[in-house]
């Protein structure tokens, strides 16, 4: 790639690396892992009109909305005057699959060039060795902390979602989340909190803390959110979907990030099964898969042992559910994971599912909208609505469609009573 700016070790000492926001709980923890590894990092919180404007200006408008927002957010930040642009770098994840998302880093570099910011180095965050930068290395220690951060993130997100809708004292769950984010971050700083034993210890503490929240269990419409990963988690991308649902008095469940990571790893193993491609890579991925799977199981066991909270059936069960509907070779974008997550949500009582996707998202034609009919063959009472997001889609239209889903959900809820 011709216009790549190298991010070297010297730069690592004085440059501020900007991270685009996706899901606040996980990303705040991840940010702190990087800070504790001596990088200067800042998590972008700029939202609003100018982000979309910059995105529209510098990214091909038919490109998916997440790219437009992520790049828009970074350029907006660079132009804000808050940072010395000659001492700033950007970081972006790269998945390397067959969907457009693997091109984000290239689109970002193109956009920087157009914005006369082509001297700003871009770091690719991925675990397949793509596009490496000498000044940014993920050490094993960092990797373990990052993994721990994601696990804690999933746990905090899950438990806060299970309590938020029912808490007697408004805001208690989110206060607990904030508390734990800062606790965990200081633990990481002291090089604690991420080893297996610590993980167990703190997860138990977190679960117990959430179990203490006083709840008022009145039946509420239960809504699951699946979708393209960025739009699903990012309030900037989904027009504050979770807040809207809360305002409509619904309980929300959003499958965690671990599922996506397990899915990404599992796909390499599935490739071997389907296409007979064998190699060292597959062996390593199998080890990683088992490792991660154990962590997931541990988390689920802890929740079960220490609370009455609902526990997900786990990734292996998810595979089985997905396989009933779609081939596991379908691995671009969120692939079969998305289909599987809908099945799991419906099975676990979240019959109302919002499938969020950027307008024109290619994998979602297949795994989202494309599978709804077949999912209903298995889950007759599933109430699924697909919502498209893009710079011009208005929240009034989106909310109207969601309100329809909620009205039916509410009716079903009353029928049960």
């Amino acid at each position: 790639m011709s216009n790549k700016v190298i991010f070297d070790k010297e730069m690592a000492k004085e440059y501020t690396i900007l991270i685009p926001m996706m899901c606040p709980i996980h990303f705040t923890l991840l940010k702190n892992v990087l800070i504790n590894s001596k990088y200067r990092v800042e998590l972008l919180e700029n939202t609003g009109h100018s982000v979309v404007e910059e995105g529209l200006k510098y990214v091909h408008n038919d490109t998916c909305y997440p790219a437009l927002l992520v790049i828009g957010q970074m350029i907006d930040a660079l132009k804000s005057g808050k940072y010395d642009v000659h001492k700033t770098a950007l970081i972006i994840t790269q998945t390397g699959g067959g969907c457009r998302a693997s091109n984000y880093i290239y689109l970002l570099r193109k956009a920087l060039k157009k914005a006369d910011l082509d001297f700003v180095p871009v770091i690719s965050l991925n675990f397949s060795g793509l596009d490496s930068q000498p000044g940014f290395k993920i050490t094993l220690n960092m990797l373990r902390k990052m993994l721990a951060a994601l696990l804690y993130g999933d746990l905090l997100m899950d438990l806060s979602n299970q309590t938020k809708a029912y808490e007697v004292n408004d805001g208690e769950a989110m206060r607990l989340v904030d508390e734990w984010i800062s606790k965990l971050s200081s633990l990481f700083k002291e090089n604690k909190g991420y080893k297996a034993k610590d993980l167990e210890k703190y997860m138990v503490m977190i679960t117990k803390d959430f179990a203490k929240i006083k709840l008022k269990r009145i039946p509420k419409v239960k809504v699951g959110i699946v979708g393209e990963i960025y739009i699903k988690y990012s309030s900037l991308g989904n027009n504050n979907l979770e807040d809207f649902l809360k305002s409509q008095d619904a309980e929300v469940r959003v499958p965690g990030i671990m599922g996506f990571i397990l899915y990404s790893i599992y796909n390499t193993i599935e490739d071997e099964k389907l296409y007979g491609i064998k190699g060292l890579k597959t062996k390593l991925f199998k080890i990683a898969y088992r490792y991660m799977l154990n962590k997931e199981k541990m988390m689920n066991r802890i929740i079960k042992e220490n609370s009455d909270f609902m526990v997900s059936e786990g990734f292996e069960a998810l595979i089985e559910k997905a396989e009933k509907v779609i081939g596991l070779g379908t691995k671009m974008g969120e692939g079969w994971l998305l289909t599987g997550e809908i099945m799991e949500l419906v099975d676990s009582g979240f019959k109302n599912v919002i499938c969020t996707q950027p307008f024109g998202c290619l994998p979602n034609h297949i795994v989202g909208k494309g599978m709804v009919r077949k999912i209903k063959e298995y889950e007759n009472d599933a109430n699924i609505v697909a919502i498209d997001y893009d710079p011009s889609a208005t929240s009034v239209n989106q909310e109207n469609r969601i309100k329809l889903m909620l009205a039916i959900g509410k009716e079903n809820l009353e029928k049960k009573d």
Partner: protein
Amino acid sequence: MRLGIDIGSTTIKCALFDDNEKLIYNSYQRHSSQIKERLSELLNIIHTEYKVNETYLAISGSAGMGTSERLGIEFIQEVYATRHAANHFLDKPDCIIELGGEDAKILFLSNGLEVRMNGTCAGGTGAFIDQMAQLLNMDVEAMNEAAKNYQKLYNIASRCGVFAKSDIQPLINQGALKEDLAASIYYSVVNQTVGGLAQGRKIDGRVVYLGGPLTFNSELRKAFDNTLKLEGICPENSLYYVAMGTALLANEKVALKDLLDKLDHLKAFKNYYSLKPLFNNEAEYEEFKKRHAENAVKIHDSQNIKGDVYLGVDAGSTTLKLVIINKDKEILYSSYRSNKGNTLDLVKNELISLYQNNPKMHIVSSCVTGYGEELIKNAMGLDYGLVETQAHLKAALKFMPNVDFIIDIGGQDIKCFKIKNGNLDNLFLNEACSSGCGSFLQTFATALGYDIDSFAKLGLFAKNPVDLGSRCTVFMNSSVKQAQKDGATIEDISAGLSISVIKNALYKVIRTTNLEELGTHIITQGGTFLNDAVLRAFEIELGIDVTRPNISGLMGAYGSALYALDNVPSATKIVSLKDLLEFKNTTKQVNCGLCNNHCQLTINDFGGGKRYISGNRCDRPIFKRSDHKVLNIYDYKRSLLESYKPKDSKRNITIGLPMALNMYELLPFWYTFFSELGFKVVNSGRSSLDKYHHSQNSIPSDTVCFPAKLTHAHIDTLIDEKIPYIFYPCLTYNVKEKDTDNSYNCPVVAYYPEVIEANLKRLKEEKITFIYDHFSLANPKTLGPKLYECLKRYFADLTLKEVKEAVKKAFIEYYAYLKKIEDYGQKIIKEANEHNAEIIVLCGRPYHIDPIINHGIDRLIAGFGIYVISEDALHTDYDHSKLEVLNQWTYHSRLYSAAHYIKDKKNMDLVQLVSFGCGVDAITTDEIRAILEGHDKIYTQLKIDEITNLGAVKIRLRSLLAALGKEKDHE
């Protein structure tokens, strides 16, 4: 008492029940966005005339959400309300079809409740019918009347209003009958509703029609009846079901007096992002007007034109412009009028009155440009036809010899030209999808109850113009709705729309990121720029003053007149007054049968043996000949694929392959593979629109690309032919091209078989074995064993050895096929070079050779005498590290290679076919443009969909040729 109020996108409806559920009052009226006022009037009537003090009350409707929030009134979702009312008032309805101003809904009530609502993309319905009626210059009732007498139906894009519009406009311009168009419009609404919303579920039983359009248009109901093969009912009060359901569902009692007080005190509020005002004060506006008054060509107010004059006509898509100039290039006469769907009659009448009023006038030369160019030229005997871009360039150069950039926003299209040394350097035209043009403003003005001029003026001094983004009309409707909800005034919306027209042109059509690259000498033209608000918005966005000629709306016609002046023929062929008075035109519709495109031809008969045929893609119906003098690789590829005919073989088993998506390249592979194993291999053959319409109700995602949608029809064809086995594998990995980062298929091509299996219930119903396992073509060694593993489940006697052998043969055949294409490409290049002819690399994907997908564009190009070649015939080594994209898709990598191949070839240019909705091409198009422009080549993109509007394609191609031709002149 129970009161339900339904505030839709265009109308407000109410239903008032007494305590015995007797409907005692209802009303239906357009609200023209004055929701607060209309609501207040309504509540007053109920309060004073019906003496209601307190009532259960709820609000519903897409525009009612904001109102209900602000007033603290309960909101009921409208589909939910409809369902409630239907179950309450009707006897066991099975299915409800409800069309509203902008929404379309289908409710399945029996056998498992399902509710479908159109997504954000599918265009409006009521608003769409209004728009189409306007286009036909009829009111809605007249259109309904007209449709009763239709003779034939046209295929009109059923996806969204904007597309349908671009289908209808050329038909109008070609002289198609309004009766036929009216009926076709209703059928397109039916197709859109059924195709987009039914999603595989059959509509039958007791069907109920609700909502404005279905209540008012009997012919629309008939179109539904005919398509669904049933007789639906449109019950009493069909307009009020949402309001009635809302009334019945209301949970909260409201005192009307209090509510009215609340409404009165509802303050203007602002909850949206606003832009800078266009003008801060009158003085600024006066200065602006003065400045623009200076750019003038002299216009005589001649009552009596004498002597030699030159005629220029611009027959645009919605307007007709006509100019007469003298030899000093001064305007003696001009006219600018809406063509009311009948350009030809208008020109005729204009000419008659010109001749009669000016007996001493001699038109010595004449020229026509625009959509109607060919029709007018033929009918009126004008001397020249000029492609629009050249006409505009000519006029612009007259005003500003050093012009850098011309931007023309007309009724239906946006044209922007970059000028270098007085020549066309680059050209930008809007795609069918983004219609931020003149008719767009017009549509909004009308919908909000204004004429276009006064509507635009409203925006000049708006304090807080709304930022509406810059999308197509359909999206804009909901943006306007949102803005209303957020408290924008009509002035702010007007200004916002003018600004959005500009943003659309700059950021969507030109795709500029650096406004400076447009240059400093800029001319604006086209009718839309006559609008001061739009012009001002443009200057503000650019930050510089631009030039608007005083004849901004007439530039095409003026440029044509200048061309006529520069090229005076020895004797003009223009019709005389005598001929004009006797001139008659009858039109006839026929289907051309000379090839498989089956073009729908409109034959205009002008009497005296003079005819004009339109709607054709090639010259064959005109000259009755079928020999193309130039080579067209698309024809060659099609004939190659057709050679893989089914033949009897040792097994008595037939296996079917759908001719869709990647099968256009892999047919040789799979045909050989299965033939080697002793199967009889049939394929689904050519695509057809009829079959597509039959199959479209199983398409789950209405925004997926058209080539993918066609797959449904191909599978249905195989099922219809009772083929017991259909093989359509999922292919994540394609064959790998040289030096690429990976060999993916795009997600849609890779996994469409999964969608087919999940949505074509017929496969199971008819007990077809559908084999859609996942394989990888990038791993030839393991492909054999994996195919064996899969196939032995169905055919136990197969052996691993013979499968492996068949894979080997299949690869050999596949590569031989690719080689043939490459060889033919070389032959084309050689022959074109010998004839010193131009070659167009018409690039896309393998499936773009399907004439239903490419609309015969390949033949259109060949018709210009240009050789046609495709991207897979051109391979070249280039420095892949210079690519600014991840080169990971097999088909797409060939595009980059082709672009590099032609970059230094003088007689080769590239035109890229892009299927609408192709997300991956958002990446490839920018990259190919960059490669070409880096070598001073013009990049041309043609976006294609179900639409068959070749008019825009022709203009684009002709402009490209004109630009190329000019360049050669200067070499």
